[in-house]
């Protein structure tokens, strides 16, 4: 009786699960698979129907969650293994899929290999991305695109001292978008449609060899990228809600990045050494052609064409050497030296034919070079069975050079600049093992940079990290506290950032049929940064941009089995930013323009309870049903709040 009450309470309580309700985490079929000839086969397929009902801002729901209605192959798994490791064509097939059909997030992974001969890996993914014109750009930027990615890797003779590696990667994004274009004068923006068409292909060819105890890895790659997104005026807006009567923009952007990667590694009882070198030279060619006819905000008729052509180039050289020494069994010292040099340069000819200003051609040349050298030394010492010490010293130096050059009507202006930055930081930590299953680690880090590039970069920072971990066969508990403070102050400007995270997380599996896991995190961030801006042509200085975020996040999940017949999973996920505690976004508004005050904090809540039932109908068949609710609420403005009911019913089967 007591057990029954406990189970009911566990299922109804503030339960967990940050994950999505599908696919169903259950197994069907013989637990050891089916023997077919010399192979063992295990398979499961989950097919079902998804539904959703959304109240409130559907666009925001699609941005955050995006599950829709329809029939899906919610998940599948297939493994085929040869029983003696000597299959005729293959020894192993591992295939898993998720969301195939029409889910917004689809995934498929395949591995086929024959021992000693080949290993082939495929990863295919699709993401349905939806940006519902969030108010970042005045609600004017909207995207509804699909990104498809696939990675193919083939290793020939994978177990031999000499291996051949081949690979191919494809990443494409296409779909409709609404973006903005500044029309004839500053601050006047108009929406235009874009038919996004981007594609990246990468081909790889290389090999690995083991020589004299060293491992050599050499790969040559070719990366191609092209974008041919055309922009057109939104239908029906010509001359009415848009200042344009006609608008057209094309900007084909194509290029390649051939690259080399070389890696050498060796290791024995007393030392390990690894060297890594990469060289890539990216180049992109472009032509930009924009023609617009319309009326500016002063009522004058305008006719403008902008033509830009040129190319951008970026050779990147980087390399690093890692040396590790093990003077004793308890001491490891590692030194890592890394070098990185990026030279970004590009030139373009900008020509504007304009009936108002009739400006001539502009010739631009821009260069940005970043060269950094980093040297780090880490050491870890095991003093005794229960005490370990670790620490490190990190030094890096960076040189940034730039040239901004523009030539207008044959008169060049050139603005070269160069600067050096240095950072020194140190880490010290202690690790305690009070028992085999209980570990405590504490560490602190301090860093000093002499000349950060940005006002919000790390300059004088320190962090503290504490972690406790307990793990036994059926119970795991971890707790952590982490602080990260940074100040970056110069005359007339100061920036401070204080982040504090606290968390506790645990899982308990006392029985095969019962498990519970949950966690809580408090994420605090407050920053204050000096800003300067204009109001009615008057420069306002000495103001500060303040941001305060206090996020409480909790999740809890309980799974229990009802005999061998059914499994129940219930969960709850809760994220709430309580902001700085104010109830009115405009509290504190003074002489400053209003937008800075409500931007200081953004309280909201995002909750998602879920429940799932899986019933065994037959050894090879289960019936599943699940429900997940999403509740998003913005406290101040609420324009994007929504509630969504989502769910599914499916069968999980094996043959």
């Amino acid at each position, binding site marked *: 009786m007591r057990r029954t009450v406990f189970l009911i309470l566990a299922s109804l309580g503030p339960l967990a699960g940050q994950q999505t309700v599908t696919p169903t985490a259950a197994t069907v079929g013989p637990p050891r698979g089916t023997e077919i000839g010399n192979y063992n086969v295990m398979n499961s397929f989950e097919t079902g129907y998804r539904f959703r009902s959304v109240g409130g801002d559907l666009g925001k729901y699609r941005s955050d969650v995006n599950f829709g209605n329809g029939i899906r192959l919610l998940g599948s798994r297939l493994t085929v293994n040869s029983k003696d490791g000597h299959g005729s064509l293959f020894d*192993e097939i591992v295939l898993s899929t998720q969301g195939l059909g029409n889910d917004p*997030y689809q995934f498929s992974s395949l591995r086929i290999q024959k021992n000693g001969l080949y290993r082939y890996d495929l990863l295919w993914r699709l993401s349905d991305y939806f940006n519902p014109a969030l108010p970042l750009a005045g609600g004017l930027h909207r995207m509804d695109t699909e990104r498809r990615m696939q990675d193919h890797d083939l290793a020939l003779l994978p177990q031999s001292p000499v291996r051949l590696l081949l690979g191919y990667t494809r990443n494409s994004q296409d779909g409709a978008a609404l973006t903005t274009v500044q029309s004839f004068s500053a*601050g006047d923006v108009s929406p235009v449609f874009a038919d996004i068409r981007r594609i990246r292909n990468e081909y790889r060819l290389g090999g690995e060899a083991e020589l004299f105890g060293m491992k050599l890895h050499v790969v040559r790659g070719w990366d191609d990228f092209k974008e041919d997104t055309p922009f057109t005026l939104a239908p029906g807006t010509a001359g009415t809600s848009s200042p344009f009567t006609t608008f057209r923009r094309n900007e084909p952007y194509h290029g390649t990045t051939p690259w080399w990667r070389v890696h050498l*590694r060796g290791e024995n009882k007393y030392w390990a050494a690894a060297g890594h070198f990469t060289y890539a030279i990216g180049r992109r060619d472009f032509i930009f052609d924009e023609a617009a006819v319309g009326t500016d905000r002063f009522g004058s008729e305008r006719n403008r064409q902008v033509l830009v052509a040129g190319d951008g*180039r970026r050779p990147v050289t980087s390399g690093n050497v890692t040396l590790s020494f093990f003077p004793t069994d308890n001491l490891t010292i590692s030194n890592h030296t890394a070098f990185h040099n990026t030279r970004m340069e590009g030139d373009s000819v900008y020509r504007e034919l304009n009936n108002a200003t009739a400006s001539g051609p502009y010739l631009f040349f821009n260069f940005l070079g970043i060269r950094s050298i980093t040297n780090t030394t880490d050491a870890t010492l095991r003093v005794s069975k229960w005490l370990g010490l670790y620490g490190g010293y990190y030094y890096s130096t960076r040189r*940034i050079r730039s040239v901004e050059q523009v030539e207008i009507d044959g008169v060049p202006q050139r603005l070269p600049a160069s600067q050096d930055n240095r950072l020194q930081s140190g880490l010290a930590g202690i690790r305690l093992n009070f028992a085999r299953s209980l570990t405590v680690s504490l560490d602190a880090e301090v860093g000093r940079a002499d000349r950060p*590039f940005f006002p919000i970069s*790390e300059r004088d920072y320190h962090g503290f990290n504490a972690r406790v971990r307990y793990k036994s066969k059926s119970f795991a508990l971890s707790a952590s506290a982490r602080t990260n403070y940074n100040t970056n102050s110069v005359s007339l400007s100061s920036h401070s950032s204080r982040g504090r995270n606290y968390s506790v997380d645990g899982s308990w599996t006392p029985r095969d049929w019962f498990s519970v896991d949950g966690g*809580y995190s408090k994420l605090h961030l407050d920053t204050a940064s000096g800003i300067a801006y204009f109001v009615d042509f008057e420069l306002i200085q000495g103001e500060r*941009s303040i941001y305060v975020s206090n996020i409480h996040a909790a999740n809890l999940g309980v799974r229990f089995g009802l005999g061998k017949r059914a499994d129940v999973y219930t969960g709850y996920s809760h994220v709430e930013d309580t902001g700085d505690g104010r109830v009115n976004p405009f509290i504190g508004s003074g002489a400053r323009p209003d937008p800075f005050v409500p931007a200081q904090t953004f309280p909201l809540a995002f909750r998602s309870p879920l429940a799932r039932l899986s019933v065994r109908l037959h050894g090879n068949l289960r019936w599943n049903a699940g429900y997940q609710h999403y509740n998003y609420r913005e406290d101040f403005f609420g324009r994007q709040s929504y509630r969504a009911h989502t769910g599914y019913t499916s069968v999980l089967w094996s043959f």
Partner: protein
Amino acid sequence: MGEVRASFFWVISSLAVPLTLAGQNAPANQYVGGEVCRKCHPNVWLNFYKNPHYKSVASGTEAPDKTGCEGCHGPGQAHVQASGGKATIRAFSVMEPKQVIDACLACHSRDLSKANIRRSSHTLAGVACSDCHSIHRSPIPKFLLAKEQRDVCYGCHAPVRSQFSMPFKHRVNEGFMQCTDCHNPHGAPAATWRMGARPRMVEHALANEEPCLKCHSDKRGPFVFEHPSVRVDGCETCHNPHGSTNAKLLRRPVVFTVCLECHNGAGAFGRQGDGIRTQSASHNMADPRYQNCTACHVRIHGSNADPLFLR
């Protein structure tokens, strides 16, 4: 000169000692073969043909110390004679983290991804291979992880779990992405963005760039007009990569504070060391028209046509 001689001696001795030790390895007769292990550990053996490590058994050509049970657990004769016990064999459950790493690297050191494992944050914190991988009871055939990858990581990184539960996030919980798309849990070389010291476990993309560019290839460039913040301090200058309560994973709820916190004209920052330039006087922040910076500066990640990223 004395230091040089000492260094030379150190190098020679470090090369020579392992060769000497190799000759002193336990005699081959201490290896009893997997069939003997099978008698007492039938459950482990029963499904071992599905284990990636089985391929060393199938090849039939590996030396006894590199194949089967004893390839990882060491010679088993003493263990058999003592009728079991963790003290008589290499038992990973009682081994020190460094011993576990040494044992696994005996074969896996050839993997490029493990080049920095000796200095990784995980190794410094005493996290060893067997904390994330389960060799005999893994539900994930590929990589033999102890659980689904995200659950392995969340087990220690609870705040990260919270970040991926936020309204705006990369789709890790949805199965579209994995932590290893951006991170190398075995350690990564010094970052080529920021000042190199942090972050420490982020996997590099193609040309040792930030991993964001593996997927967001349209932001990669090169562009004629690069936005230096993207290249110098990286994407996280403006974005929270795991998840955020703010749209577009931004660090602030509105875009103009993201921009103005850098573009304040103060101090010795920026390319010329005279501050990151402020907005022009024509921008009137009291007018909502100027509060959405990216409505006009649409190519904020880099542009080929306009130095102010307008087109």
